[in-house]
């Protein structure tokens, strides 16, 4: 992990800035010299094709993976995120794409994992009340919070993971496809929630393949392509530009499908 990258070029207002981050897995370079800035009170959307390296980038920010090279600054000071605790201590909360829940623990235990109330005599009642409140805010439909997470549906699990991240008082919140498995109502609540935390001055990174979601909440859209920065767009950029930046071609599956589907019920480009 070389820290030779130049951090001086980073914006002084930025909460977190990444400079020339690269990450190799064996012969595959998942990330190549990626830069990213997160500002307080701003929602950055990170978009890109499958395997573009979005989750890898988030994992590096969350301290789960260490970059092969590049530098990270938090509040302008260089930091090394050598493990997830380090990131959590800095106030970086993350919802991972694979959720990272303990299937053998129940919903309450998962939400409070690592942050239990009264460690020497767990306050199960208070934790359960708080869990129901959080889940209620997210419109979750979970019959019982005392079931192991293994018994939950995909969307219910995702809600639990999101509830987890709201529990601590973070300064930055990283959401890796938080609404992928959510129902329409839950998605709306999560987007509301994201806007609320943004308005409280937190930095937010959201990854999504759904252009409508991205466009609805993002203040800035950062595109990754094959592990490299591929442009920054405003939220009102045209769908065509965004999709071209993501797929790397003007003529792509999306535009072709849009053309070929001649019927009235066509699929709009951009998560269509």
């Amino acid at each position, binding site marked *: 992990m070389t820290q030779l990258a130049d951090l001086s070029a980073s914006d002084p207002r930025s909460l977190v800035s990444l400079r020339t981050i690269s990450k190799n897995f064996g012969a595959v370079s998942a990330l190549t010299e990626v830069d990213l800035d997160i500002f307080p009170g701003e929602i950055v959307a990170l978009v890109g094709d499958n395997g573009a390296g979005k989750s890898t980038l988030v994992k590096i920010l*969350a301290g*789960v993976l260490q970059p092969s090279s590049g530098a990270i600054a938090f509040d302008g000071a260089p930091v090394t995120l050598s*493990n*997830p*605790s380090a990131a*959590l*201590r800095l106030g970086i909360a*993350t919802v*991972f794409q694979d959720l*990272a*829940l*303990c*299937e*053998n*623990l129940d919903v309450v*235990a998962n939400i409070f*994992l*690592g*942050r*239990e109330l009264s*460690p*020497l*005599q*767990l306050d*199960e*009642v*208070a934790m*359960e*009340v708080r869990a*129901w409140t959080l889940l209620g805010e997210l419109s979750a*439909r*979970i*019959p*019982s*919070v*005392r079931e*192991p997470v*293994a*018994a939950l549906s995909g969307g219910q699990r995702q809600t639990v993971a999101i509830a*987890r991240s709201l529990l601590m008082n973070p300064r930055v919140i990283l959401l890796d496809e938080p609404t992928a498995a959510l129902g329409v109502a839950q998605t709306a609540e999560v987007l509301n929630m994201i806007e609320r935390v943004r308005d409280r001055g937190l930095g937010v990174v959201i990854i999504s393949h759904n252009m409508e979601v991205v466009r609805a909440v993002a203040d800035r859209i950062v595109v990754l392509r094959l592990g490299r920065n591929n442009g920054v767009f405003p939220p009102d950029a045209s769908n065509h530009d965004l999709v071209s930046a993501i797929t790397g071609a003007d003529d792509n599956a999306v535009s072709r499908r849009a053309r070929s589907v001649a019927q009235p019920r066509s699929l709009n480009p951009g998560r269509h």
Partner: protein
Amino acid sequence: MSPDSGHHADSPALLDRGDTRLKDRSGIAGALKAFADRVQSGDLGSLPVVIGLAIIWTVFQTLNPVFLSPRNLVNLLFDCSTVGVISLGIVCVLMVGEIDLSVGSVSGLSSAILGVLWVRLGWPPELAILAALAAGCLIGCLYALLFNRLGMPSFVSTLAGLLGFLGLQLYILGPKGSINLPYESPLVTFGQLLVMPAPVSYALAAVPGALTLVRRLRTARRRRASGLSSRALGGLLLEAGLITVVLEGMAYYLNFARGVPWMFGLFVGLVMAMNYALRSTQWGRSMTAVGGNREAARRAGIDVRLIYASAFALCSTLAAAGGLLSAARLASSNLQAGTVDVNLNAIAAAVIGGTSLFGGRGSAYSALLGIIVIQSIASGLTLLDLSSSLRYMITGGVLAIAVVVDSLARRSRVSHGRA
């Protein structure tokens, strides 16, 4: 463990009773239905093992009426305590999905340390005990180091330990071999004779029921206050009453013979403490999490290495404690302490009691239940005149039977998608 039966069926405002898909399970009928649900889904905790145990006891009792005599049961409890304590440590490492194959050797080593320091070198026994426990703890830390820093699988490092510490045990006992511990010493008396006076045994037998009642009542009150469903008072009283009656009855029965061994009291106390630590502290939660999904636990900010270290250290320390108890029980530190069977029995007890070999699922009570099963089989068979070959075969068969009830219950658990 117990289902939260709705307290008031008519108050839909309860925070955790909002979902219409939840069947109402309040009242006696509801409790019965909830129980039927649990039977069907195989979520029965330790009930199946208890049933298996009851079968074994019945069979041995019909074969030889001495089996359930108070006198024999007192012996049984003495015998359970030594390996039981070791098994309790095994529960810890199994919880985090690791294993310790060296508990036998460590227990032997600790008994050797006790004998050499106390009898040969004349240290005060308290110091010798502390030294033995410290050695156990150190060994656990060594395994943790190998695991955390070098990534050596615990199966291999503890296998190396199994051999290495057996060697060390032989080495420190030296060519003179076994050492007798003084009979009159409090330690040996504790291991061989010391039983609770009858009143004390009755008082202590009342403690678990009372504790349960108090904690459950407090929880129920707080849950009601917070707008959560809570268990009905009747059920709570019934449960606590049942526990108390069973324990008092056992104490009464055992007092016909010598009484309840203090050593068994110590073992049960350790089990209860471990149960509390695993269920009701952050450390226990972290242990379960690490055993269930190590990476998720790490991402939740848990110091995974520390958790592993605590599991290994606790296991080895308890193994050392078990070694001390068995030295006290035998009144000797001998060459063969811990060499045979101890490893297998300790691990088997935890597994038979229901702790998973793959981590993340288990309870301190599994050590208690499992060791009672194993020792009951052993004790029952010593009462029958059998050749060793038959004894081995029957032990194997009975072991399988003891677990088959549990397996069947768990099987339906799997088929209901909750394994």
